[in-house]
């Protein structure tokens, strides 16, 4: 207890000392200090949050795509074609598939069943705009955006009492803390811990601070200004995993479902507010 307190005080003092010294120098030199730059970034993010979110255009795209790919027969847990509030109770166990699935995995499964796609075609469909930084409109992103926005206002309600879902939650938690790869990273390297930290100019949310996991996942798909398109959860996993120097993530895999179950499980009670917006 005492050691933790001492460590905390020392770190806080070190950071304060460091920041203070840099600020002093910046004022002498006339350049922007790191804190000033951070403040400007927060203001930019706040300005982005006002106004219409360009991600809402994908809502219409998704509406058309759902008719085109016969996804009105898709059962997201509330009945075939019932989409209002469906995303809020995902991930859940599906008896017809025999496994726990999150929103994207279920859409991939429905595409195979009702639109006649093969597994490879589904993966290609999912990845059609990955890696592009502009002018790319993906029907898959539209479908996910539409289905999530139909649950806007509903509170996330993952049923952790279901034994299958509970096992997946534990699995996700274990994966979250598994150190792997040439940089020894795991999800917890950045997204755990009681102390508020940032990576470069970006504040990091933590699974250990209550409410932050909810704040992070309830706004997905998130429209990213730098790419001019929304980012779905599985694309976010793929990008995080790429930055962790792990081998490439396969969308709709059990790994994605495990992570979704863990994070949405932590986010229980948060209202869905898609799309979010960020740099």
């Amino acid at each position, binding site marked *: 207890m005492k050691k933790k307190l001492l460590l905390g005080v020392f770190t806080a003092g070190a950071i304060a000392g460091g920041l203070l010294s840099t600020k002093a120098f910046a004022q002498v030199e006339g350049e922007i200090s790191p804190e000033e730059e951070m403040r400007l970034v927060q203001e930019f993010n706040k300005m982005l949050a006002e106004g219409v979110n360009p991600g809402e*255009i994908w809502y219409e795209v998704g509406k058309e795509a759902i008719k085109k790919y016969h996804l009105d027969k898709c059962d997201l847990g509330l009945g075939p074609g019932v989409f209002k509030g469906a995303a809020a109770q995902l991930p859940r166990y599906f008896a017809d598939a025999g496994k726990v699935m999150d929103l994207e995995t279920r859409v991939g499964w429905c595409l195979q069943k009702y639109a006649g796609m093969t597994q490879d075609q589904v993966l290609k469909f999912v990845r059609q705009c990955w890696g592009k930084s502009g*002018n790319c*409109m993906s029907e898959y992103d539209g479908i996910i955006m539409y289905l999530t926005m139909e649950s806007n206002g509903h509170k996330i309600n993952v049923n952790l009492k279901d034994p299958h879902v509970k096992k997946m939650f534990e699995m996700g938690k274990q994966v979250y803390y598994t150190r792997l790869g040439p940089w020894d990273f795991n999800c917890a390297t950045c997204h755990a811990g009681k102390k508020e930290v940032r990576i470069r100019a970006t504040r990091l949310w933590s699974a250990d601070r209550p409410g932050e996991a909810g704040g992070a996942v309830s706004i997905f798909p998130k429209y990213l200004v730098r790419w001019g398109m929304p980012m779905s959860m599985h694309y976010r996993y793929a990008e995080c995993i790429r930055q962790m120097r792990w081998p490439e993530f396969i969308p709709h895999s059990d790994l994605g479902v495990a992570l979704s179950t863990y994070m949405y499980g932590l986010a229980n009670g948060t209202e869905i507010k898609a799309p979010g917006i960020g740099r």
Partner: protein
Amino acid sequence: MAVGTGILRVPKEAKKGEVVRVQMVITHPMSPARKDPQTGQQIPAHHLTKLDLLFNDKLVSTINMGAGVSANPFMALTLKVEESGVVKIVYEDNKGGKWEKTAEIKVS
């Protein structure tokens, strides 16, 4: 789905003489003329050039744009309303595309 689709958002109701905010988002790459780094080929510019805001078919504002505006631009204009009517935006790009969108406001 295509380039040029947009969202036009105005308050449904307003008081006479009130200044309302007309918000719009238009899907468009808004790219300048540039060279493909891999092949060296010239890619021509593709961006919106003009957006007119009309209220009951009377021109209120014009926005002239170039390639410097970011992709999928979000724009907001203010409009003083004295009577109920139809807000219309008409916009075009440099490749000959022309679109319009309308929305109604009820003024009490």
